[in-house]
């Protein structure tokens, strides 16, 4: 097990190195320059700036310098901002993106499961139709449209909640709902299908025959079994929510990591692009590693070499 863990850790680090290298190369291949603008910067000024950020050195030297700084967990400066480093960006932005993503996950799972259960229990009746219409809307309406509509009515017209920014817990409600809509709809549909399948199982009939109450049958035997596919999908949904909130962050003016990443690309802010890519890659690679290790612990049939018996 220890050998397997070390082996997987080695592969994880190798994967991360590949990601860093590819990102580094791709970044330099994009046309454009971090300091180019429609301004009148003379060549002398341009050279000073390149020297300041060590961009006057050969690319290979820059690459190894960057790898060296990563070993000390230093993601470098932002080329567009003198007041903030990439580490600051991540330190300030990631907790917000994480907060938003987790809040959306909780809303999505809670209401997704509730709507799915209701739809299954009221199969082919109005609660089922309403839940599924909502689910279809959730899947087909892009979250930025929902976000815009919510800001327009809930925040501006009715004045119930703040329209944007990230200050109090009230500010978190609208973006979380907007972000949760898609997973909510997805989970509702998944839960409904799974519930219907479980409800048709023999052991449910047996439970009924044994005289168990409907509530106990639903809570103890149906939901518990039906929720398994949702749990399986949770890691994917969670990863999407935490890393995929760029648009929502932009619409609601949320100072998370999404905006930083997108702006980094537009500005050719190399350390910001690299820093955010490396950071997210490290998280994902670590999660995959954790899941793989957890599998071997949960399911003894999976051997430490990763092959099934």
């Amino acid at each position, binding site marked *: 097990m220890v050998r397997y863990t070390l082996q997987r850790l080695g592969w994880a680090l190798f994967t991360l190195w590949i990601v860093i290298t590819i990102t580094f190369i791709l970044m330099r291949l994009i046309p454009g320059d971090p300091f180019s603008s429609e301004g009148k910067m003379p060549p002398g000024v341009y050279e*000073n700036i390149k020297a300041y950020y060590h961009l006057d050195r050969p690319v290979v030297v820059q690459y190894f310098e960057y790898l060296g700084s990563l070993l000390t967990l230093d993601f470098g400066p932002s080329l567009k901002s003198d007041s903030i480093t990439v580490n600051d960006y991540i330190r300030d932005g990631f907790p917000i993106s994480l907060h938003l993503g987790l809040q959306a996950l909780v809303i999505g799972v809670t209401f997704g499961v509730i709507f799915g259960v209701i739809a299954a229990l009221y199969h082919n009746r109005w609660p089922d139709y309403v839940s599924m219409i909502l689910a279809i809307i959730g899947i087909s309406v892009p979250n930025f449209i929902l976000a815009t509509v919510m800001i327009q009515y809930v925040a501006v017209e009715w004045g119930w909640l*703040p329209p944007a920014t990230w200050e109090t817990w009230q500010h978190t409600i609208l973006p979380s709902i907007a972000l949760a809509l898609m997973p909510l709809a997805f989970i509702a549909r998944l839960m409904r299908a799974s519930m219907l399948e479980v409800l048709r199982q023999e052991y449910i009939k047996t439970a009924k025959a044994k005289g168990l109450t409907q509530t106990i049958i639903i809570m103890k035997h149906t939901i518990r079994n039906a929720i398994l596919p949702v749990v399986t999908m949770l890691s994917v949904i969670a990863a999407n929510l935490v890393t995929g909130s760029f648009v929502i962050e932009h619409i609601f003016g949320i100072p998370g990591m999404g905006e930083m990443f997108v702006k980094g690309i*537009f500005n050719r802010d190399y350390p910001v692009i690299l820093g955010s890519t490396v950071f997210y890659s490290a998280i994902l690679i670590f999660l995959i590693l954790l899941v793989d290790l957890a599998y071997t612990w949960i399911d003894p049939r999976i051997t430490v070499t990763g092959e099934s018996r």
Partner: protein
Amino acid sequence: MIIKTQQKLRTIVISILLMLVLAVTGCVGNSSNTNASANILNVNNSSEPGSLHPAKAQGTHESWPLRHLFVGLTMVGPNGKVVPGAAKNWDISSDRKTYIFHLREGQKWSNGDPVTAQDFEFAWKHVLNPATASTYAYQLYYIEGAQAYNESKEKDVGKLKALADKVGVKALDKQTLEVRLVNPTAYFDQLVSFYTYYPVDKNVQESNPKWANDAAAFISNGPFRLTEWKHKRDLKMVKNENYFEKDKIKLAGINWAMVEGENTAWQMYRAGKLDLALPLPGDVVGQLKSQKAKDFKIAPEFSTYFYRFNTTKKPFTNAKIRTALAMAIDRATITEHIAQGGQKPAYALVAEGARDANGKEDFRTVGGAYFTENVEQAKRLLAEGLREEGLTSMPKFNIMYNTLDLHKRIAEAIAGMWKQNLGIDVGLENTEFKVKIDREHKLDYSVSRSGWVADFSDPMTFLDMFTSASTQNDTGWKNKQYDAKINIAKQSSNPVIRMKAMHEAEAILMKDMPIIPIYFYTKPYAIKQNISGVYTPADEYPVLMYANIM
């Protein structure tokens, strides 16, 4: 049993929905501006300032807050004229190459330190130090020895200091600053109001070089002082009680949001979270204009929207063809139906916003229009141009524009006009902004969308961009006569000679037409009606220092 369970479930569902509604409605807050009574103004800076150090700042997101934190030797006043700032007055030598600025007595930094001429000398030399890597260092190249110091590759500290000592700025005493210029620069009194020329507290900079990154350590000499800087969230500043003009400052403070999305910021304004919305989304501008909304204003802006030609690429090598294309655009359609922000059709490069030699009339008014829209004449010029180039028809080419819906719609309209008026097939090519800049520098385009926002209120800010030596010409166009005129204007101290040379230069540019002027920008914005005292110089964002909330 099943019916009972269903009733229970229904009750649960209704309860959950009710709780949700209550949770939402429970947060009902007062959406109107709660800072009105505290006399605090809420505005949106659109983005995080890259730096609030005068030497490192560049662009609107930095200059707007900085304008309220610092004051230079001069500033642009409500009537658009240069007025004394940190300097109470100044003397100019007869050759107009030496300025002696006399600072106001008793001025203090926000920490109580005296503001001295040494602080100005120190700050300007700090900007020019190559190790500072200031983007806007070239704004100081008007000063003797400035360019040599800034562009020096010298590593020896002693030799570098010798270069710094040769820079033509010297504190003669605590209250007097001498500045020696390379050429007489008519707009130098205005240049020193630019943020790169702001002073820096020498003691603070030397003891804590990172002072500008931390609100607690931030020291300024302007009407406000920084109290809070939450990165990517907001900036807060309060009235600086040490400011020399503090009695004229009515606001207790200004809060600056950093919301990137124009639509989001507009909704915040509507919800009462912002007192001023700028920039406004394009469709909102059109809507407010047609509604004649009372809180909607259109301020002048000293900037021009234009198209560049790659004059090294056939058939754009031919001036007649370039002129034909310029004449076949219906600019009023673009400004009234697409841009919709009160923009003015442009028939010259220099926008409205700079005074001419007499100091009263605008440079644009004196210069007038250099061409007219005339489809028949455009057709004739195109035919002649094509004949001269040995072509029978115009080859298909692309208009390159950077990703923005407005640019796309304008490019579509212009392509349509050229098709309809001249029978030319034009394609559209959308590129990301940095790619567009890169391709412009490499002359890898046919026609490219461009714009220029002035740095200061003088026609030179536009005109020297198209000299042969300019790194921002990006058209491949070179004209010795033009260069000579710009040179005359740069070296002359006589405003009549300067303006005449610049008018003549612009005439040459518009005769050869390496660029097509499309329109002169404006600054449409919305401001709550209970706010007074805000003014908008043509080359600046709204100045809020004299604002008052009723």
